[in-house]
Each structure stands twice: as C-alpha cells, then as structure tokens.
C-alpha cells in the first residue's frame, strides 16, 4: 500500500473524528464523561481537531493573503499616508520650524525668526533641497515656489544681517503674513491641509478655515459630478438592463443561451476597444452623425457634438457597465417562479399590477446587487472619461491622475484618493452586507 506511514496518521484522524463520537452517543453507550479511544476527554479532542482543521484551511489561504497584503493593501496605505504627512518643509527648514513650534499662532516674525529663516534658506540652498521646500509651500499657497528658488540662488551668493531687510530686499513677498501662516502650517509634518484643499477649503493668515476663491473651487464640484454621473449611469444601465435580463430569464434555455452571447461578448471585449469604437461612432464625422444627416434628422452643418463631453462619458460608460447590471438581474430573475404572476392574473390583477406588485419586488435582490456593483465601478472609472470625456466629462479619478503625473502634487492626489477610497469602501461594505461578496458572479 502506498503511503504506509500516512495510514497510521489517518487512523489517528479517524479516532479524533467528531462524527465517530456522535455515533457512539447515538448508539447509547452513556458514560459520565465521554472520552476518545485513547482515554482523553472528548471535548478537548474535538477542540483540537477543529483547531487543526481551521489551521489547515487558513494555511491554504495564507500565501495569497500575504501576497495581497504586501502588494496591494500596504502600498495603498503607504500612499494614503502622504495625504496627511509631508515633511518637505520641516526636515529641510529645521530652525525656522523650531521657532514656529515655540511661538503662538499669529506672532509676527521677530529677529530670531528672520535669523532662523535666513540660516535655513542658506543651508537648504547649499544642499539643493530648496526646490522641495518651495514645492511644499506652493501646494498651500500657489505661486510661491519661484520665491524660494530665486531667493535660494541669491542667498548662496552671500547674505548680510540684518536678515529681515536683506530678505525683504530680495523679494518683498517675504513680509506677507499669509506666507508666514502657510510656513507655520508646513512646519509640522502632520497636516490636514490637503484634506481641506480637497474640499475646496484653505486657511487664511490667521489660520481660520475658509472657502477658496470661486474660480478655484474644483474638487467639491468634481466629487458631486462623479457621484451624479455614476448615478445617472446606474439608472441607465437599469433601464436598459432590466428588459434584457427579463427576456433572457423567460426565454427557453436554448434561445436565451444564444442571446446571452450578445451580452457576454461586450463583457469579454477589451475596455479600450469598446471606448475606441464609441469614439469612432460618435465623432462629428462619425457613423452616428452620418446616419442622422442621411436620415435628414439634422442638417449637414449642425452635426451633434456627442463626444469629448459628458454625453460621451455617459454613453460609453453605460455601454461598458451594462453587463454588470444584466448578469446579477438575470441570475435572480431565473429563480422567480412564474406561477406567482399567473396567480395574480387569475385573481384579477392587470398585467401592469401583476408586474408592479408581484414580479418587480422579487427582482429587487438582483437589482440591488447590479446597481451597487455598477455604481462602485463607475465612481472609480478612469480610462473611459479620460479618452471620451473632454473637459466636462472628467471624473475625480482623472484629477488624481493629473496630480500624480502632471502637477506632481502627490499629497493632494493621496488626499483625493483617500476620500474616493472611503466612499468606495463604504459602498463595498454595504454590498458585502446586503449581497455578500461570495455571491459575486462573472458570466
């Protein structure tokens, strides 16, 4: 026999098998304290065997869990740390940071402050970290990076006390109370300012929180637009998906399998391919406009602008996310017993009443699952809005990408990402509560 030594182990396992003990009890061998064959208390043996089974199951999952934690959970945590921790100023400007720590908010800079500032600026300019410092202040007070870099160039050539006059001579912006207030904020690496900025708030010279100027208010509007458009897309996928799912669920298996291919093919087709085809179709010189002109619906000179705006984002994303609505709806509708509707009809309900009061309520689990999935996916969409959204169809993801790659304000990107992630995780938690992640189905 193969695995000779293992056979013994299997025997021991059998002795610890809880089912064996239950069999013993059932057959009526009643002792005061149940024990296993080798005389140990049964409850302890059972606990041990269950512990072992749990450990075995957990060991199977452990490699993947470790992999996901290291390559996914921790990196995201690290990234989010940047949203409230930025030591670009405090590390490179230690003396003036110390002065800020000792004085009250609103203290006008005294001689000690100017001395510390001049010393830090000189040291930082020598170490060529002045750009980092300027960038950090620039995040909170746009347009100040050049103040730091140009002052850095000058102080490297030498600077004489009294430093307040010397620095003000280089640039009178050094006397700006707003600048000093911003530097005070940046002197501690922990900051909530990026979150304030992410909701269009800033601090004035006195450190009071206030709204930013109207033309700079972008983020709150973008968050609202993201949620609003995701809601619209979810509603559209529901309107389009419901009839299809119903048809597929009520047709005979052979026909519905055939039609299912029409739903699954878009699902399996590359996202970029689908986005590209919408770009081709909806262009001003594209197929849809051509057909409309040919039909005489619109004149040749008034071709519709259907892409590079919100319309483009909505159309393309509705198409892309539609299968995620149809599949959960379909799997729920498949289980609905048609005799309930027939019973309602036989009791005198019109077809509309039977649908509204009997059929529709039974589809709600599928509707909830599909709607939440579509909404969660839509909120975080990046590629499609970036390609077809123009400027009015951009979502918050595109702003995060812009801060990552263009403005390089990584702390701001992290703060926006943290807010978006919080929203998605709340929805995900709800989804898990109401639907259960193990009920997620693909195709």
């Amino acid at each position, binding site marked *: 026999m193969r*695995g000779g030594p*293992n056979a013994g182990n299997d025997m021991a396992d059998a002795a610890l098998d809880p089912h064996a003990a239950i069999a013993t009890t059932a057959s009526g061998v009643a002792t005061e304290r149940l024990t296993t064959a080798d005389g140990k208390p049964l409850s302890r043996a059972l606990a041990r065997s269950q512990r072992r*089974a*749990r450990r*075995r199951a957990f060991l199977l*999952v452990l*490699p*993947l*869990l470790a*992999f*996901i*934690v290291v*390559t*996914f959970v921790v*990196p*995201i*945590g*690290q*990234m989010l740390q940047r949203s409230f921790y930025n030591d670009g100023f405090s590390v490179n400007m230690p003396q003036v940071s110390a002065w800020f720590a000792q004085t009250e908010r609103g203290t006008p800079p005294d001689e000690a402050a100017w001395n510390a500032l001049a010393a830090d600026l000189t040291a930082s300019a020598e170490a060529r970290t002045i750009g980092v410092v300027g960038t950090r202040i620039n995040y909170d007070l746009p347009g100040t990076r050049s103040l730091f870099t140009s002052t850095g160039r000058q102080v490297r050539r030498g600077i004489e006390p009294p430093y307040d006059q010397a620095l003000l001579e280089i640039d009178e912006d050094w006397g700006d109370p707003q600048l000093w207030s911003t530097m005070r904020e940046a002197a501690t690496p922990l900051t909530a300012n990026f979150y304030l900025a992410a909701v269009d708030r800033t601090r004035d010279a006195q450190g009071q929180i206030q709204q930013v100027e109207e033309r700079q208010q972008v983020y709150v509007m973008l968050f609202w637009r993201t949620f609003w458009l995701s809601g619209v897309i979810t509603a559209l996928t529901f309107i*389009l998906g419901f*009839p*299809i799912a119903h*048809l597929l669920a009520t*047709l*005979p298996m052979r026909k519905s399998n055939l039609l299912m291919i029409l*739903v699954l093919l*878009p699902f*399996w*087709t*590359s996202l*970029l*391919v689908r986005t*590209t*085809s919408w*770009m*081709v*179709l909806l262009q001003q*010189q594209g*197929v849809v406009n*051509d057909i409309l002109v040919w039909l005489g619906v619109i004149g040749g000179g008034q071709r519709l602008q259907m892409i590079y705006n919100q319309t483009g984002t909505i159309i393309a994303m509705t198409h892309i996310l539609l299968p995620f609505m149809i599949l959960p709806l379909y799997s729920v509708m498949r*289980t609905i017993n048609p005799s309930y509707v027939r019973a309602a009809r036989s009791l005198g309900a019109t077809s509309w009443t039977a649908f509204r009061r009997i059929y529709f309520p039974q589809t709600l689990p599928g509707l909830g699952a599909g709607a939440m999935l579509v909404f*969660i996916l839509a*909120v975080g969409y990046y590629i499609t809005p970036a*390609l077809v959204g123009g400027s009015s169809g951009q979502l918050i*993801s595109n702003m*995060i*990408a812009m801060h*990552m790659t263009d403005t390089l304000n990584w702390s701001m*990107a*992290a703060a926006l990402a943290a807010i*978006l*992630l919080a929203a*998605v995780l709340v929805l*995900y938690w709800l989804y*898990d509560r109401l639907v259960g*992640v*193990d009920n*997620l*189905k*693909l195709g």
Partner: protein
Amino acid sequence: MAVPTYASPLERVWHYTYLAICAAIFFFLIAPIIVIIPLSFNVEPYFTFTDKMLSLDPEGYSLRWYRSLLTFGMQNPDSAGWAFWSDAWANAKWVQAAKNSIIIGVFSTLVATVLGTLAALGLSRPEMPFRRAIMAILISPMIVPLIITATGMFFFYSNPCELLTFFGLSPSCGRLAGTYLGVILAHATLGIPFVIITVTATLVGFDQSLNRAAASLGANPRTTFFRVTMPLILPGVISGGLFAFVTSFDEVVAVLFIAGPEQQTIPRQMWNGIREQISPAILAVATLLVIFSILLLTTVELLRRRSERIRGVTPR
C-alpha cells in the same frame, strides 16, 4: 416566451413593442463592437463608411491598416519575403507590444491561478476562520478604483524595501517599477479576484465526501488533490485563469504607472495611439482583439458546460 392566450389586444401590442425594445438594446450592446470590423478595412484614413464601401466596391476596402500594424517601427518596411517577417518580428512596435502582453499575461495568470486556487480551496472549507473578512480583502483589488491601486503600486514598486523602514531597517533592494517582474506581480494582484470568484463558485457544488472517500481508500492528501479534487474543479480553474489573463491583457492604468518603455503592452500602445493621433490602425488592432475575445468567450462557455456536466449540476 409567447403571449398567453388570455392576453388582451393591448397586451399583445405591448408584447411586440417589448420585443422591439429588447432588440434595440441588443443592437446598442453589440453594434459598437461589430461596426469597427468593416471600418478597419477602410482604404481611406476616415472613421466612417465611404460611398465605395457602402456600394460594396472592392476598391473601397484594403488591408493597408493591418499591414501598417506590421510595418510601424520596422527598419526596412519595403523588404520582401523572409527579411520582411524577421524585421517585423524583431522591430515592429505592435509585434513587440503583443509579445510583452503575452509574456506578462501568461506569468501573471500563473501566479494568480496558483495562489488563487489554493486560497479558494481554503476559503470553501466550512471551518475556515474569518472567512467573510478575508474574502472581502481578497476581492478588493477588483473593487478599489484602478487609479488608486496604480498610484499605491507606483510608490511601492519604485522602492519595495521602503516597507521595511517601518521596522527600523533601511535596506535598498532596487526597483520593481520598470521591470517585467513588477508588472507581472501587479497584474497578478489585479487578476486574483477573478480566480477566487470563479473557483469558489465551482467549489460550491463540490461534494466533499469524494475527498473523504479517497482518503478512506488510502490516498494521501496530495494524491487526493491531484487525482480527485483537481480534475473536478479544473474547468473552473481554467476559466478563472482566462479571466485573469484577460484582465492582464486589457490592463493599462497600472502599466502606465509602473511599466518602463521596455514593457510596452498592446493596451498601452493603443492608449498612446488613441491619445495622440487616432488612425484606423487602431481599428485593425481592435478587430483582432474582438476576434480574440470571441475565441475566449467560446472557450469559457464550453468549459462552463463541461464543468456543470462533470459535477452533475443541471443547468437551471
């Protein structure tokens, strides 16, 4: 689904209207994918049907965009025969991209499938502790917006050892960003939820007593797994793997953030093409990808049926 005999005339009208609406929605779903196929054979650099194409004049159609996929990036596109093909194999941008996509796709699928299947086996045991929470974590790469994942990965893969500074160590172990290994690991992370979902769904119908039977007949755990469990769940594992492969094959955001110029993949090449100057060559690629997805879809459907048959699950 026929109209019941007791339906009123109004209901009959509604029934046919409903079928028409469904047909229109199916058209909306499928037309955008189908329409690019003829357009990719356009002889003109336009994204619309020319008069010649509409009158089915062969002169309106050509393979020039497919040829341009090969010649783009070639050193000597006018050569013929063997020289042409070896040049294309070595230098053409799209061929390089396809090679990269396949290398990255295959290896990330292997990682995702092996780890994912093991975990799914553990997760579907009834005694698994913290099952729900762990499952939620393992599925989260599918739920978390890709841009957030990619941003996190960008920092992590640039300096993977930064993690250890938390424990007071300051080692340096190079970069994973801009390497094949980095992209493969990133794509494996993104593919894992699909493997988990597909394989756990297969295991729901799995009869655990088969394992006990094998054990009682003297098979050790490894033999039990490879001779009893594996053959039964194999269709699910393969379709999970295909999902992971497609995820990698279609992924562009993580590639944009962590791949270097060496790891140019098909989606990234498409992304560049679409952002800069969109040409019908993109449609030729898109057509090839649509054919590819039709093949994959067919495979997955066949596997699903086979899986249902061998597990004795009758399709509902």
